[in-house]
């Protein structure tokens, strides 16, 4: 980075802080976990969807949760993002207990997610979707919006600008920025969803089957993107994935769920060889 570029960046950062809500960055001790899940359990009526899972997400890491259909992966995700309140157990994020906290507050604290069945706002453009993602960073209220004060105007402009940057970062072509989300191809919709999640500047990004419906080439690109995001944006990624190639390729640690219970955990290669995992996926041998 040349000195002028650095000056540029710090100038932009100053402008950012001026217009958008300042974000207090909680610094963790090196090695301290980003998120700590203790004995998380979710019971629906008589069905225990997730049972007693203890799980740690380190800083700056990519970890995966895998398991057969109906293993409770998405329920687990929904607990982490506040959509479900755990029946038992505790979730600690950035050193704070966030068990049962509302989803929008958890998002504001720095957890963002994508959905298994894409949930973009269909009649909004790609850019507008990413602008909604920046909701927590904006300040404009009712009066400011009606009067459209210079501050609100600058904020809108800045949010639009950042939206474009993020869309470019996830590899969207400029020509699709103003396309409605429903017009986009499946792969592009996935990308916009990731961009929308990134817009809240998360410390932890949860991706729910991001490569579903992608061809091998697109999957490969996405793996690259995940690594890039981890390194450049200094965040951790928790991945739910069916595509074993992606999981083995990108994850530092893999956790396997089956019937809501954690049956294995460890390095990808070790997990793959685990007889319990093979059994869960392929059935009992012999």
């Amino acid at each position, binding site marked *: 980075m040349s000195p002028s570029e650095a000056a540029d960046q710090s100038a932009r950062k100053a402008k950012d802080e001026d217009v958008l809500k300042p974000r207090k960055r909680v610094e963790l001790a090196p090695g301290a976990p980003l998120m700590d899940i203790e004995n998380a359990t979710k019971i629906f009526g008589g069905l225990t969807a997730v049972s007693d899972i203890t799980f740690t997400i380190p800083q700056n890491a990519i970890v995966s949760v895998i398991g057969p259909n109906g293993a409770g992966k998405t329920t687990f995700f929904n607990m982490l*993002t*506040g*959509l479900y309140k755990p029946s038992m157990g505790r979730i600690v994020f950035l050193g704070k207990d966030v068990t049962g906290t*509302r*989803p*929008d*507050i958890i*998002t*504001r604290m720095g957890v*963002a*997610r994508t*959905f298994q069945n894409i*949930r*973009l*706002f*269909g*009649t*909004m*453009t790609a850019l*507008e979707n990413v*602008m*909604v*993602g920046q*909701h*927590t960073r*904006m300040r*404009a*209220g*009712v009066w400011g*919006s*009606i*009067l*459209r004060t210079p501050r*609100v105007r600058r*904020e*809108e402009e800045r949010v639009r600008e950042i939206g474009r940057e993020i869309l470019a970062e996830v590899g969207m072509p400029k020509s699709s920025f103003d396309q*409605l989300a*429903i*017009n*986009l*191809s*499946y792969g592009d*919709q996935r990308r916009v969803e990731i961009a*929308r*999640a990134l*817009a*809240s500047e998360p410390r932890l990004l949860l991706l729910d089957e991001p*490569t*579903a*419906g*992608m*061809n*091998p080439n*697109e*999957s490969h690109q996405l793996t690259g993107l995940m690594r890039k995001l981890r390194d450049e944006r200094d965040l951790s990624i928790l991945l739910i994935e069916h*595509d*074993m*190639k992606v999981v083995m390729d990108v994850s530092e640690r893999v956790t396997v769920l089956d019937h809501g219970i954690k049956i294995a955990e460890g390095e990808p290669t070790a997990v793959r060889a685990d007889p319990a995992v093979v059994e869960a996926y392929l059935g009992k041998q012999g």
Partner: protein
Amino acid sequence: MAIANPTDQAPSTKKYSLDSGIPPIVGKLAFLAIAIFAILMPFLFDPIAGFMDDSITALAFVIMALGLNVVVGFAGLLDLGYVAFFALGAYSVGWFASGFFADANVHIGVTGFITNIPGIHANFLIVLVAAMIVCMIGGVIIGLPTLRLRGDYIAIVTLAFGEIIRVFAVNGDQINLPFGESAKLTAGVNGITPVDQVQLPLPNFADPGIQLFQFGQLNLRPWYWFALTLVFITLFVVIRLRDSRLGRAWIALREDEVAAASMGVPLVKTKLYAYAVGAAIGGVSGAFQASYLSTVNADQFKFSFSIFVLAMVILGGLGSVWGVVVGALLLSLINSYLIPDIFRTVPKDLFGLDFELTDLGFGIFGFLLLIVMVLRPEGLVPERRRQIELHQDIDAGETSFEVRT
């Protein structure tokens, strides 16, 4: 070894766009032309004639419908009790701008003979602000219990809230307020009347023939212009809100609550804003109508009023600001001008009928609504996003066409 998802190929077949194809300059010019016509229109009609009266009512309904559109159209929260805010706005006038509280003797910003009458008499502009505040509080109260509900359940709760307000209005003459001997909550079906006329801090252009800004029963023009000004302000407010951070949050919430919450949109706060803004606008219209009709009568606040305003919003185009304006003007004028004033002139024996056409008022009304809903379900001037949602479902075959028995 990703498995191709069947939806993979689906989107590319049809491209949707928010662009209506009309260049913005055409829209702006059209608005300007209509605005100028609307401002000059009173000079075409007798200042005390029926059509002037109907136009003022229509403008009041436009404000009302624009307010309801914020709740139902923008935020997607079905509200069947919108009459509550008409009532609260009207009672704000009854309380703060009439001789109703006879024990009090408060005069704020008013001149003329009113200063000699006991009661609370605040200037109408102050009353407007009071009406907005009262209604916003009412909006938040109605909003809070509905926040955990969705869809139809919200509609039921709002309906009940509208009825509660009506029952309070009807029986308010039995409810004593803690100040003053004769202070009641409302005057029930007898109505609070008369109510103060609007007084604006404007120079009275002293043309004795026209008396441009002298509000009164014999000169309806100032009422018209005042209502028109309120319409323009309301339009400005709702358009600014629609195109703001809050407007985006409303669309997000309407499309997918789960996704919106997961993107950091606080559901409770965002919905309450919609209720409060919608309520405040309804209150403005209620206050205006109370002052214009010079009465606040519990009989005005019927459930059918809520449905009437909702019909305006849906007919015009849910979520579409311009559509709602068209819908409100149309239905209001059909209701108060076409059916009673024009159909009455149709001779009784024209179709060999034994009754007057005006007796069929509701029938004609319903028939017209039905026609529009069959031919243009998205409304007369559809909102693009809503239209896309509707057509997308049809394109995707998400309707129940396949269900045959």
